[in-house]
């Protein structure tokens, strides 16, 4: 990857990778730092990166940087830790978009990442596996679990809201 290709990557993918990281971290400054770090690493290693793999490499680098950061600050807690709080979810319910957002934020970081990569970027299971270091079957399981969780969350919320009307 040369200078021109790197700068094209910045132009074309900086926003996308930022949206991905921001969605997962929910923290603008963290997301900006992660993206900057990822591009920095790519620039430093550009001579070893094939241009056709650059986008995947960028997302992978950003993902792992983010996971490291999450592990350090533990800003995103695990799904299990949040189960007990689910009865609060309806109190601030304002619409499907926010409901999904709240549900998404209760997913573990890895499940959240794979479903965002899937829906935002349209990556295939194997591509998500390459980015995250998970196996293809793990990716599939995580996506199925995440969909089920999101669906159940929506379902329970709607039942609660309708039941209280």
């Amino acid at each position, binding site marked *: 990857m040369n200078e021109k290709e790197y700068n094209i990557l910045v132009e074309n993918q*900086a926003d996308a990778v930022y949206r991905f990281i921001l969605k997962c971290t929910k923290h603008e400054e963290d997301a900006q*730092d992660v993206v900057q770090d990822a591009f920095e690493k790519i620039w430093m290693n550009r001579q070893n990166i094939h241009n056709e793999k650059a986008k995947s490499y960028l997302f992978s680098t950003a993902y792992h940087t983010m996971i490291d950061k999450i592990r350090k600050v533990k800003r995103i807690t695990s799904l299990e830790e949040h189960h007990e709080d689910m009865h609060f979810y309806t109190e601030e319910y304002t619409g499907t978009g926010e409901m999904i957002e709240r549900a998404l934020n209760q997913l573990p970081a890895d499940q959240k990442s794979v*479903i965002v990569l899937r829906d*935002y970027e349209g990556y295939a299971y194997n591509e998500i596996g390459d980015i995250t270091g998970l196996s293809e079957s793990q990716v599939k399981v995580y996506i*199925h679990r995440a969909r089920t969780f999101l669906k159940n969350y*929506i379902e329970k919320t709607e039942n609660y809201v309708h039941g209280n009307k």
Partner: protein
Amino acid sequence: MEINKENYREVLISYLEKELSPAEEAMVERYIQENGAASREWEMLNLTRLKPDMTVKFPNKQLLFRKEAEDVVAAAPKVIGLRNTIYRFSAIAIAASLLAFAVIMYMNRPANTVADLHPNTKTTPEKQLGSNRAGQTTADNSTSNEGPKANMNPGTIAPETKSTPKGNLPGKTKKDNNKIQNPPVNTPKPTIIIVEHPQPKDEMATLPTTGGKIQGSEEGNEINGQLPQLKINHTVATVAQKQKAETDTEDKSLAENLFDLAKKVSLKKKTINKQTYYALSIETNNVKVNKTFKSLTEQ
């Protein structure tokens, strides 16, 4: 494939994820039409599809663009032997750093030479490298350990820095029967001066400056709970010192001592729209902090 009440939820997810063959898809579509519960399930599943907010953009994208020319500076640390840390400065910053090195080396050599050639020469505490060289001077033998340039001006040194026993200075020769032990001194050591600011990055142009140096503190999320307050100061000169220290295997502890909070420091200078910015990255054992400053000056 068979679809029934036990497996239709899982099958619908597979359908949503386009994991099925065309024949299976047709079967699922038929099942949805004929089964109310499946239809409701499918409606809910469709809500789980995430849609990116395309109005969200990375701010300051210009900071990410790079030029090969910037890497010229990266070669400088390699030349002097830095292996693990790469500092990249602009051409001006390199010139300044090299000049600083030259001055440091110039100021070190004569002092060490004099001390070695004349073991009885005593030096004032102010000329010693802080309390790094804490110890006792023997009755007959002592030596002068001049530090980097910044040490020559005690006024620029933070007084709160702790002292640590230290070995020889880089390039120093030690005679076998000549124990080099320096008296404990209270001379403050050079300190890391990292300057942080509370503004978000898009407001960095309004960075406050006070008394010839940038000041500020931040309790950002990155350091929340790790370091109660990362308030360090930093100058280009101390970066240069660290470079020098790390190039000398005998002087590792000097680097550690100078940067006891910062394990890894890099400083980049960028010019965007004729405005110069300094991107400072500080990595400690626990956190990595990236900050951008409009100016970076020595105390």
